[in-house]
């Protein structure tokens, strides 16, 4: 095997080694060295992710058998078009977050850089793994890192929100174990492909128990994804943590969505025999309610970060809708929208950090305050992001939204989904236009003492913002790629196919 044959595991090992090396003497005490090192690693990760993406696109699904034990006995990593895309997304997000934090946010607590690296390792692992228990392990990696990152910078509110987050996720982790135990108890295997193969052949008694286990997993992933009624932790947690961490967390809910997609959309999807689409009856109302409640909360938000957190919830609902629609077309739309919403929300969180920093005590709340020193720059970026988040042209939001609208074909579903998605768009428009006018225009006096954003922070935001128009300009090839991902995703992967690819 040449080095490139190990490419699949790079997105896990790169941040791992970086995280560990950052703990060693001489680098662990020198913040500047850490910054350079993590930025370099992130660039490497972007390159690796891009290579993986190209490889998957040109040669198909990649399988990596750890310890050279073939599936279902050993753990395999599976990189298909969808996971490769998610890896690329997390790499870019990671780069932006680290750049942003390197301007000074990383000073406010220990181990910021290693923790970010471990966080990325967990996220990438969750995207790549083809094994249910290994998914649990990577969930733990990303969770435990997120617990620590969330309190970065300290402060009472941050810790309080974190306690809610930790507590609920601990319950979630135990439920995850229960669910895995249950599924293993009936299926006797942990490999996703093997599980999918075995599900249609269960006996009657096993069927019901498997169903219980599978649905319990929905609660677990739903908690992570922040779908209704498990979304309560999100607004406080995201709104109270530091800007770079919140931005990175924009992809964390997507991990939950991703898992629901893989497990409930595909494994228990059309090909699951008696257990086909068991989650759909649940997901329907949940998805719609998540959009509705998310939108109401968007309207109710009184600070930019809370608003943005609630937009994350709306995007979660929208993505659930695309999962529920259960078609390649809908998955394509969903995948495109997922990338868009992650980038836009993350960028907005970063921007909110700058706004907060320049508005003194008013922070990012929608109240009259002194004008920001870099109001023009920030306002420009805000306008772009607002346009993207509302789903207006010329940025990528409208493509995602239009694709989703197109993918609804049933008239009854159309009435519900269209009105909710468009209604949520209108509410975001109202809320964001109010937010923008209050933050930037309702000012009294100048604030000259506030900290100016450093160029590196603008670079970080710029990287993300630049992707939004690019996703429209190159919308043709990106949507084609999303379609490829959706096709691979919906086709599923049998154990036999998996092992053939592995050879």
């Amino acid at each position, binding site marked *: 095997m040449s080095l490139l044959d190990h490419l699949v595991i790079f997105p896990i090992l790169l941040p791992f080694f970086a995280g560990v090396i950052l703990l060693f003497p001489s680098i662990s005490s020198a913040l500047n060295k850490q910054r350079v090192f993590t930025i370099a690693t992130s660039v490497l990760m972007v390159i690796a992710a891009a290579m993986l993406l190209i490889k998957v696109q040109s040669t198909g699904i990649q399988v990596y058998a750890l310890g050279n034990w073939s599936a279902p006995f050993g753990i395999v990593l599976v990189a298909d078009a969808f996971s490769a895309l998610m890896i690329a997304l997390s790499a870019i997000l990671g780069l932006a977050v680290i750049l942003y934090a390197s301007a000074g946010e990383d000073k406010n607590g220990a181990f910021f850089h290693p923790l970010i690296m471990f966080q990325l390792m967990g996220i990438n692992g969750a995207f790549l793994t083809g094994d249910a228990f290994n998914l649990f392990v990577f969930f733990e990696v990303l969770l435990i890192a997120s617990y620590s990152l969330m309190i970065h910078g300290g402060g009472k509110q941050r810790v309080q929100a974190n306690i809610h987050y930790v507590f609920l996720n601990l319950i979630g982790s135990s439920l995850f174990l229960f669910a895995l135990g249950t599924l293993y*108890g009936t299926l006797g295997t942990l490999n996703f492909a093997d599980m999918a193969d075995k599900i249609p052949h269960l006996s009657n008694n096993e069927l019901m128990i498997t169903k219980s286990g599978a649905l319990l997993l929905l609660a677990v992933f739903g908690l992570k994804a922040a779908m209704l009624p498990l979304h309560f932790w999100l607004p406080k947690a995201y709104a109270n943590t530091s800007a770079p961490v919140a931005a990175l967390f924009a992809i964390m809910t997507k991990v939950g969505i991703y898992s629901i997609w893989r497990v409930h959309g595909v494994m228990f999807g059309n090909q699951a025999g008696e257990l086909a689409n068991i989650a759909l009856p649940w997901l329907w109302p949940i998805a719609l309610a998540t959009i509705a409640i998310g939108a109401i909360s968007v309207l109710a938000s009184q600070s930019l970060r809370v608003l943005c957190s609630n937009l994350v919830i709306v995007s979660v609902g929208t993505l659930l809708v695309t999962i529920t629609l259960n078609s390649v077309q809908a998955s394509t739309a969903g995948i495109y929208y997922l990338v868009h919403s992650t980038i836009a929300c993350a960028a907005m969180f970063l921007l909110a950090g700058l706004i907060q920093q320049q508005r003194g005590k008013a922070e990012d709340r929608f109240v009259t305050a002194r004008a920001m020193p870099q109001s023009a720059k920030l306002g420009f970026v805000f306008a772009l992001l607002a346009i993207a988040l509302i789903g207006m042209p010329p940025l990528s939001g409208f493509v995602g939204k239009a694709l989703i609208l197109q993918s609804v074909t049933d008239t009854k579903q159309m009435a519900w989904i*269209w009105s909710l998605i468009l209604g949520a768009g209108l509410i975001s428009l109202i809320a964001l236009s109010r937010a923008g006018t209050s933050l930037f225009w309702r000012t009294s006096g100048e604030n000259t003492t506030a900290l100016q954003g450093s160029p590196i922070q603008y670079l970080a935001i710029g990287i993300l913002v630049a992707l939004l128009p690019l996703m429209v300009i190159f919308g043709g090839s990106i949507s084609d790629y999303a379609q490829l991902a959706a096709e691979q995703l919906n086709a599923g992967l049998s154990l036999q196919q998996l092992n053939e690819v592995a050879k």
Partner: protein
Amino acid sequence: MHYFWVPFLPMLGIIIPLLTNKFNRSTCALATALLPALALGLILFDLPAVLDGQAFTQSIEWIPLLGLNLSFRLDGLSVLFSLLILGIGLLVILYARYYLSEKDHMGRFYCYLIMFMTAMLGIVMSNNMLQLWFYWELTSISSFLLISFWSHSSDARKGARMALTITGAGGLALLAGIVLLGEVVGSYQLNVVLNSAELVQQHPYYLAILSLFLLGAFTKSAQFPFHFWLPHAMAAPTPVSAYLHSATMVKAGIFLLARFYPVLAGTEVWFVVVSLTGLFTLLLGAYTALFKHDLKGLLAYSTISHLGLIVLLLGLNTELAAIAAVFHIINHAIFKASLFMAAGIIDHESGSRDMRKLNGLWKYMPITATLAMVASASMAGVPLLNGFLSKEMFFTETLDQSILGSLSWLIPVLATIGGAFAVAYSLRFIHDVFFNGEPKGLTKTPHEPPRYMRVPVEILVALCLVVGIFPAYTVGPLLDSASLAVLNHPLPEFSLAIWHGFNIPLLMSGLAIAGGLAIYLNRKPLFRFEGLFPAIDAKIKFEGAIQACVRWAQKVNQTLESGSLQRYAFWLCFFALALIAPPLLDLDTTRGSQAEYPLNGAVAIAAVLLVAGSLATVIWSHYRLIALLMLSLVGLVVSITFAYFSAPDLALTQLSVEIVTVILLLLALYFFPQHTPTSKSRPSHFVRDLAVASLIGCIIGSICFALMTSPLDSISEFFIANAKTGGGGTNVVNVILVDFRGFDTFGEITVLGIAALGIYKLIARMRLSMRTKDHDGRLWATDKYPVLLSVISQSLLPLFLLISAYIFMRGHNLPGGGFIAGLITSIALIQQYLAHGVDWMTKRVSVSYHYFIAIGLVTAAITGLGSWAFGQPFLTSWFDYFSLPWIGKFELTSALVFDLGVYLTVIGATLLILANLGKLTTKERLTVGVR
């Protein structure tokens, strides 16, 4: 063809004003005008072909999956609108050069203006519906920026937000309509869609499509009941109003109706809805305009009224009406733009727009006054001006109606009344402003504007006259080709003459003028009558409605997100319960075919102890120390159970984890209140939580029972069969941990390491104060480090280490392994901390514990990477047997090195946490309990 580049030229031009802003104002304006002028040139270049009745389309694939293509068309309608957009746009650029003051950021203004121009051009030239919508929304965004240009004013902000909200909502409706229409037709290309009228109108979605399109058009074109945003958009600088409310933004809605006329019009619904909306808007606008004291307010309502007129024309079911609509689009754009500019000049040079103050300006600015009067006359529909012609056509068409059945005679009557009000407000505009005495309370003396500020008005007024006098030679061909595009089939005969003889329309015109005069002369009683109604400020109403929504949303939000963790946890558990319980109801029995273990006394007692311990833990959870003791009982019984059921590895692990947990919790407990305040939960919550918890317990128990009594064909057979041959170890558990599923272990030790870092991060800067007494008020013991404990601990250390080494080494083949060994070593070291204190230990262990974690993780990972050198995937294990004299045969495996990594990580993580928790108070320890 060159037209394909037309929408791109201004697009490139968006940044030009920003780049040239630093030069002088004229340069900036000139540079800004360059690309639009070029675009206009390109249109003119292609004009002759279009006037011949040709239509061109060009497409490039953009996002095929979406049906979005980069596709432009040039036909009569798009040419007409492009000419208006670019022509009036250029005049506005010139005008704004003089209008904007030094304080205004001219570059930014032009930037928004050009952005808007691009968007408008895009709308009118699109040959793809999604692309049309793309530009449609861009007009909403850029108009928001233009209206709120003077962002310091609250009026501007609110007006802009209102316009954005209303037109944005319409835009969303339009998107829905377009996607629906696209689905029905199967294409988003206009050249396909426009020829599918039959298909569309017979489709069950037709009504939905029509309503969505009309929503889009009516919001944009300020038709009743969405008209209220337009007057408030007047907070924008006047050049913006002149542009947006004459030729462009509001005409986009009209354009939409005209563009989709071939495919959507022609049905009963269309005629009734469109014509009645138009008629009502026409009357409402005309009536309200009369009472506005603000010049721009008057013009705004007049715009609403004229838009209503055009909409009404599009809704009348004759083809000539559609032609008249197109004609009035041109005329309205010309005279309204000039009127707005004139109003801007008056405002600019006299400092006010209030008609109660502005009087007798004729003396101060005769040229401007003349121009404004001609334009107003055109607006009123006075002969020899362009407004007269289209109004005459309008009157003609209203006569020929049947859409209201026997009440159709109302339409011409109401049209005449509308016309009369138009005459009245035009009169007011002329008489109040330019005559009617002397100006009152103006801040500056009015005077003529700079020469070039007036040029745009002059050009437009000249056009009013030229078109009004020689219609057939000027706009005739353009009107023909545009109408051709609207109707999508050959035009009926019509003549563009000023004189059609004495007929009813002429009579209606005459009545309108006479009526207008009469209304204006009797305006005082009318104003008094109008004064009886409370003044409604749509802006305040709208803002109030939005705020009411926000408050409602906040209430909902607060009810849901109460901030109570108990409630969130309840929802999580309840949701999980709701998910897992129903399938079990379909299950006949949980008892599987597997035989059960026989029960004996020891097992029974253990079970009883386990249950009692768990219950006691829960019951005494408020007394933390006691709860912890109960937890030890649970842990102990669990370990014994593991041992009893032949899982020595688990037993060992459970035991060592148990001890570490106890110490960890004891460390933490010290900083907590000893008793949680007794339950403050409401009894109902208590019952609720108890019920959910018990139900979850029961269900998980049932599932476990079902699983354990069922036979299972699983991958574990493979592990047992291959542990020795493939993994080189006889302890299957350990081989699974370090080999088969070594990657899981790799992940888990990372988790452990991160957890330690996280806790360190949390407490690193924390310093907590100490209590001097324990909970029951007793002073602490004085003996910090009891000698007995110190001596025993120290002497036990080697034993501990020996055992941990032993457990570690044998791990691969017998119960044990790196994890357990690591815990034992950690406990041994913690015991020293306990007995000797932090300072004593720090002197002896100088390495920071997070290096242990790092070294451990690196060791494990490097072992995994080692296999790359042999062309194997990550973590592939290697083992072989060797023999040495004296020692005999022994095994070397890579897994042992991996396990060493685990061992080190465990030590590092455990001690990093515990030792640092211990350090929390080291320095502040007071001399307590000395007395």
